[in-house]
């Protein structure tokens, strides 16, 4: 079929308009989400919400706050971050060429990518299986286990990308000076990749703190701040989830405020990690 130039131009203009419209719709949704959470949350947010734990009748509109969820979320995610870093770093280092053949590294990347995509509810269910096996009840420790498994692939994959970018010459210099593999890894690779590693850890932290499904049955929920690893722990996403589920308006308003706190935490972590990677990569060898 022969099309006239005029028709083609029209098609081009139409498709372009459709593309811009599509992008606009998506961005509009994002703006809408942020606007709704900020405007509704800011109205209900107060200082007592942040510093107090729930008092009697809190879920019927009584006084108190969600300090339990804020502290619980921080405990859970910090604990899980520590475990994840301790596991991710050796894995990311081991993926270097001097440790494993390329085929093994590629296989591990595939395994990590598949794990990255695994739904968080599956991590929750698996965490539950592990807990039953270990004889644990819903607790801070259980939540940390499930969450650290969820964060592991995110962190490792991001770290590994950074480590892969390190110029080979740098490592060759170290080896030519007679350094062993672990010495090269710790003194050259780790130092060079440190900004990226911190960014990776914060990326995983951001994902971890927002995740609800994996800690739903592993961490439980409580009105108190946990005092030991075996106490159940509240968390921000679940605070949002449970409070929006009640029919009382005051409690629902607090769900918006909790969501705003969560959103702010995530934005801060996001911006901070970007800043870190810019600020600390200045002295790197390229």
């Amino acid at each position: 079929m022969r099309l006239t130039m005029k028709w083609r131009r029209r098609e081009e203009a139409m498709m372009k308009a459709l593309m811009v419209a599509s992008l606009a719709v998506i961005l509009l949704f994002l703006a809408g989400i942020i606007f709704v959470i900020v405007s509704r949350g800011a109205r209900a947010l107060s200082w007592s919400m942040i510093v107090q734990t729930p008092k009697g009748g809190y879920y019927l509109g009584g006084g108190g706050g969600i300090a339990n969820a804020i502290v619980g979320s921080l405990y859970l995610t910090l604990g899980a971050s520590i475990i994840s870093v301790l596991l991710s770093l050796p894995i990311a280092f081991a993926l270097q060429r001097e440790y494993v053949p390329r085929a093994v590294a590629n296989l591990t990347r595939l395994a990590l990518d598949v794990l990255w995509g695994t739904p968080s509810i599956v991590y929750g269910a698996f965490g539950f299986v592990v807990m039953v096996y270990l004889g644990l009840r819903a607790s801070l420790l259980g939540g940390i286990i499930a969450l650290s498994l969820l964060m592991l692939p995110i962190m490792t994959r991001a770290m590994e990308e950074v480590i892969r970018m390190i110029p080979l010459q740098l490592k060759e210099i170290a080896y030519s000076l007679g350094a062993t593999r672990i010495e090269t890894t710790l003194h050259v690779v780790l130092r060079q990749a440190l900004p990226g590693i911190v960014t990776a850890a914060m990326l995983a932290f951001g994902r971890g703190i927002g995740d609800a499904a994996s800690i739903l049955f592993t961490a439980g929920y409580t009105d108190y701040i946990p005092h030991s690893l075996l106490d159940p722990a509240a968390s921000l996403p679940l605070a949002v989830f449970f409070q929006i589920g009640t029919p009382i308006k005051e409690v629902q308003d607090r769900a918006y405020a909790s969501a705003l706190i969560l959103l702010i935490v995530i934005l801060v972590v996001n911006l901070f990690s970007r800043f870190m990677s810019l600020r600390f990569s200045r002295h790197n060898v390229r």
Partner: protein
Amino acid sequence: MRWRYLKDRGNTAGMKAALIFANSLFFLMLIGLYYKSRPILALKSLSHLLGSSVWLPTQGQFGFYPFIVGTVEVTLIAMILAVPTCLLAAVWLAEYSSRRFREALRVVIDLMAGIPSVIYGLFGVIVIVPLVRDVGRALGRQTTGYTLLAGGVILAVMVAPIIISVSVEVLRAVPMEARETSLALGITKWAAVRHVLFKSARHGLLSAVVLGFARAFGETIAVLMVVGNVARVPHSLFDPAYPLPALIANNYGEMMSIPLYDSALMLAALILLVVVGVFHMVAHLALYRMEKGS
């Protein structure tokens, strides 16, 4: 020297152990969930469990059919809404926009991917559900708004960052010569995109869609909040549905007190793990092959 050598050996062993853990975690999860779902599989065949629509845990009836239909339908609605929109947006970002705008948008889209699902869910409850209810009522349906359609819309928004970022990357990976050659023939930019770029990037674009699909398939909290959670096969967009992840999340409280209930829920998790795992494996293998080719 000996000490340094031993240190290297020791650390290498530790790192290899961590590597083995990373490679076996998926299978550990598979085994763990299978082990827990064995009691119910011993009593009933998998095909019976998947095909039956009767869900009465107290009477030992576990039919997953409505939940599987709910999951698939809500995911399909999300994909129908998200795929054309995201692909068009990705084409614009990859081919038409300036580099600076693309970089700025990448930050925004990363941010969008990082927003927790509970916040998407909350947005759904505040904005999408009332909207769907009003539209449904205008069309003469009795509906609460907590429907298949609301779940699909929220999921579509949630998978957008994945589909867009992978698609943009895939399109950018097409060699410049392909564009130049087709433009030199005097065709319009869109014609070049449709006939040349889409063709040479088709595996990558398909992977982007599959990754989005897998994400939507396993999404829990956001869907749970807006989809209504009624264990019946939905017949229209304005009927409530009950996807598998929501089923697991909603019933963890009572699963220990009813016999076989925990086993059934772990089987649901196992199904999710297998389905999403297979989708991801296919998509990533296609993406790796493309990376190698370019």
